[in-house]
């Protein structure tokens, strides 16, 4: 199966390479989109008009510079700041200096256009454009382009502005103590948020463009001297190899550059929190920002970092350590509790205290199903409620929780379909799985408990042991950007253990992480 997929991948790569060699004409059908600007303004404008054929939001505004020379302003409605354009571009350019009459520019003056713009346009970023490709790119970023008659270059003005969400606290990763700002959908803002935390120019941001049609901006951030060069190169090469039509979420990228996409465990961390990204950058990881997504990717990632909450570092070390231990317990519970319950109830009755066994036997007396079926039933019920709770409109959410509580909490027990201890086990398991700080890691554990449950139902504790062995073996084979997934536990890195089982006080963190840092 995998071999076949690999073959398909190879084929896809071949096709992609071939297509790269051919001129990319397929998307933009205009004949001259790749070509350079000519000296004729009309010709240029007409060419662009045909590129943006049927685009009602594409605005063309012809005007005269100082009443003398023909020029055209091109932009996309809604992406640019119209007031600023009026005030800082059109008004100063169109103004006719007093005592002067309109006349055509001489050749010399045309060559000296740059100086006119320097004098007249009061905008910080002005960029020269030479080809139609450049122009479409600039316009799609919301930067208006000015074309001038007789000139083979145009100018793009950085006056993009579009509707953005305000910076809010990320709802999935809230903290009691710690910074409350989260990323938004705009990559410029996101980068600025990071730059505000790490001011050193050693923080590098490399921009790439991914997506044949969406042309999404992606920024690879790292700190020179902290991140290993091999890691940076690997990340860059993996990003460059992406050939896809569109990128709408950073998950697209995650899936495409992950080491093992068929594993349930995420090998790249995603976060909405600025401080989390900053801390990983300082540990020598690389961060990948994707325009349009508030989730920033962090690589490489190890299993243990999925279980660390940012709050761990903002509370007292002793308490954080205790909470971290509790969290590890919850992780074991969320993976194993229902299967342990089933195994003990079906095969290992001698393991329970007598009184507990008797009361469990009593509660199971009217239940028509074997324990495994009962557990599966309830677990699926819980997953239904969880999924419905997320998907439903917020107004109906309360109704779902009431129905859920009544259905699984009371009615099912009273009807004799499930036993009361089972409801408790399922509830505890469900809640425990939400204590994993990373939603996708918790999800992996929640899904893995179904096979564990079936194993426990068929082979008892032996089955659970087999399942655990299989999971551990799988985890051992995983790597994230070359870093073993279970490090620093396996392979053991004594120095790095300071942040795995414990959260040592900050003054005890004397060395940088071994595998990523220098």
């Amino acid at each position, binding site marked *: *199966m995998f071999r076949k997929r690999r073959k398909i991948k190879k084929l896809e790569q071949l096709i992609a390479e071939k297509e790269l060699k051919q001129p990319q004409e397929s998307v933009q059908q205009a004949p001259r989109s790749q070509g350079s600007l000519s000296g004729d303004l009309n010709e240029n404008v007409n060419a662009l008009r045909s590129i943006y054929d049927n685009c009602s939001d594409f605005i063309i505004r012809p005007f005269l510079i100082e009443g003398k020379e023909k020029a055209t302003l091109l932009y996309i409605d809604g992406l640019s700041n119209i007031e600023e354009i009026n005030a800082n571009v059109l008004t100063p350019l169109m103004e006719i200096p007093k005592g002067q009459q309109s006349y055509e520019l001489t050749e010399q003056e045309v060559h000296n256009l740059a100086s006119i713009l320097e004098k007249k346009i009061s905008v910080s970023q002005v960029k020269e454009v030479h080809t139609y490709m450049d122009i479409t790119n600039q316009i799609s970023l919301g930067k208006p382009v000015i074309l001038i008659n007789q000139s083979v270059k145009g100018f793009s003005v950085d006056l993009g502005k579009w509707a953005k969400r305000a910076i809010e606290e990320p709802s999935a990763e809230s903290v009691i103590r710690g910074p409350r700002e989260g990323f938004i959908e705009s990559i410029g803002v996101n980068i600025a948020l990071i730059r505000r935390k790490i001011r050193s120019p050693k923080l590098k941001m490399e921009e790439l463009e991914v997506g044949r049609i969406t042309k999404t901006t992606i920024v690879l951030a790292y700190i020179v001297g902290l991140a290993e060069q091999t890691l940076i190169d690997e990340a860059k090469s993996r990003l460059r190899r992406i050939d896809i039509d569109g990128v709408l979420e950073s998950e697209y990228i995650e899936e495409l550059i992950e080491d093992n996409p068929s594993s349930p465990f995420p090998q790249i961390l995603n976060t909405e929190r600025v401080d989390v990204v900053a801390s990983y950058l300082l540990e020598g990881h690389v961060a990948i920002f994707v325009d349009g997504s508030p989730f920033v990717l962090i690589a490489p990632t190890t299993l243990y970092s999925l279980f660390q909450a940012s709050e761990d570092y903002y509370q007292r070390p002793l308490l954080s350590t205790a909470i971290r231990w509790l969290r590890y317990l919850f992780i074991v519970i969320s993976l194993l509790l229902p299967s342990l319950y089933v195994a003990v109830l*079906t*095969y290992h009755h001698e393991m329970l205290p007598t009184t507990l066994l*008797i*009361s469990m036997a*009593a509660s*199971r007396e009217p239940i028509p199903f074997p324990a495994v079926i009962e557990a599966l039933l309830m677990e699926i019920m819980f997953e239904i409620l969880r999924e419905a709770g997320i998907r439903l409109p917020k107004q109906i959410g309360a109704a779902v929780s009431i129905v859920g509580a009544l259905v699984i909490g009371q009615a099912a027990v009273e009807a004799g379909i499930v036993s009361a201890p089972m409801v408790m086990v399922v509830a505890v398991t469900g809640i425990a799985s939400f204590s994993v700080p990373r939603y996708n890691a918790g999800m992996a554990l929640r899904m893995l408990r179904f096979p564990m449950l079936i194993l426990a139902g*068929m*082979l008892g504790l032996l*089955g659970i042991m087999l399942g655990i062995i299989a999971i551990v073996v799988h985890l051992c084979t995983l790597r994230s950007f070359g870093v073993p997934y279970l490090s620093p536990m396996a392979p053991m890195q004594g120095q790095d253990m300071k942040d795995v089982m414990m959260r040592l006080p900050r003054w005890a963190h004397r060395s940088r992480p071994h595998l990523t840092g220098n």
Partner: protein
Amino acid sequence: MNSFHIPKISKTLLVILLSILLSLVIGCWDRREINDIAIVLSTGIDYINEDEIELSVEIVMPEEMAGHIGEGGRGGDRSTFVESATGVTMADARSKLQQKLSRFLFWGHAENTVIGEKLAEKGIREHLDFFSRMPETRLRNWVFVSEGKAKDLISSLPHLENSAAATFIELSEFQIGMNVTMKDLMQMLKSDTGGAALPIFESLPPKKEKGKLEGRFQPYLSGTAVFKDDKMIGKLNDEVSRGLLWIRDEIHYATVTVDVEEEGATGKVSLELIRSHTELIPKIKNNKWSMILKIYAEDDVIQNASHLDLRNPDFIKMIETKMEEAIEERIKLVVEQVQKQMKVDIFNFNESFQRHYTKEWQTAKKNWDEIFPEIEIEYIIEAAVLRPGTSTTPSAVPERELKDE
């Protein structure tokens, strides 16, 4: 042969398919739901005749018992029941018993084994093998002998606990008498000398008493059964049993009351044991075997029924001496009965001789039965009263009647 054609499946799919099929084939074979088992709490074995024994088991009725726990108990109702069957051996009786029950007998939670008095007199060795061989049974279950039939004892319904079994467990864990597990018993019977001791349980006769529910019997520890090889040869009563515990270093709870005879302040003082340690020091001198019994006991005064002011260290010393005498007296009682009359070594003397005089033991073990009754016992008992309690003087005695010198 050409007709046999395997469709092309990739390796991974094959592995997944095989593991699913395999687990379906090998799985579930010993699956036993919690509602398919009859939980045995205690086992009773009785002698019927030369060929047959009767096996009785106390089985939980889960719903009844859970109801008891949840609703605070319903008076008079049983939450367990006793079923029995006869057979040539334990295993035979068990299979006959199984025929009477709709659920599978489950011994994993049986924590008591009661041996009927008569069976104990006839010999128990052959029946114990069942417990060591069956994987379900616990080797740590308590074993004891019942006064009368074992079946009657496990059928008794106590006042406090909701099963007879719970009473046996609580009393055994209380450690006021001997407590012997199945493993201990087997070791005792396997030892070179073959002496064993088991606690005896008795159920109070159902006489009418105020405040007690009718039909309820209170099982209690009533003494110790002494075994020679695997047959019961005698009983020690409760008082004598305490002496046995002192020798075996198994005493945990003891209240000793001593008489004080001081001029003008005669009375009794009760002491409670805090901790004690017994050491057996074997000696062989001129082919004469003797044993030094060294006991150190620490006590608190819990009642002062005399007029003595216990702040005076002289009085404490006196009480300590009295205490030592009292302990020695108790021990002598058991020595007299066990060593002189029954001539069975249940004091663990053999072990300590074996340890200290290995060579001599090798020749002596064959005629240990003759040597043991002749062993001279020397007592070195040291009692210490650590605290006179929280009140220094007898609280209800007027100051002038107090004797403090």
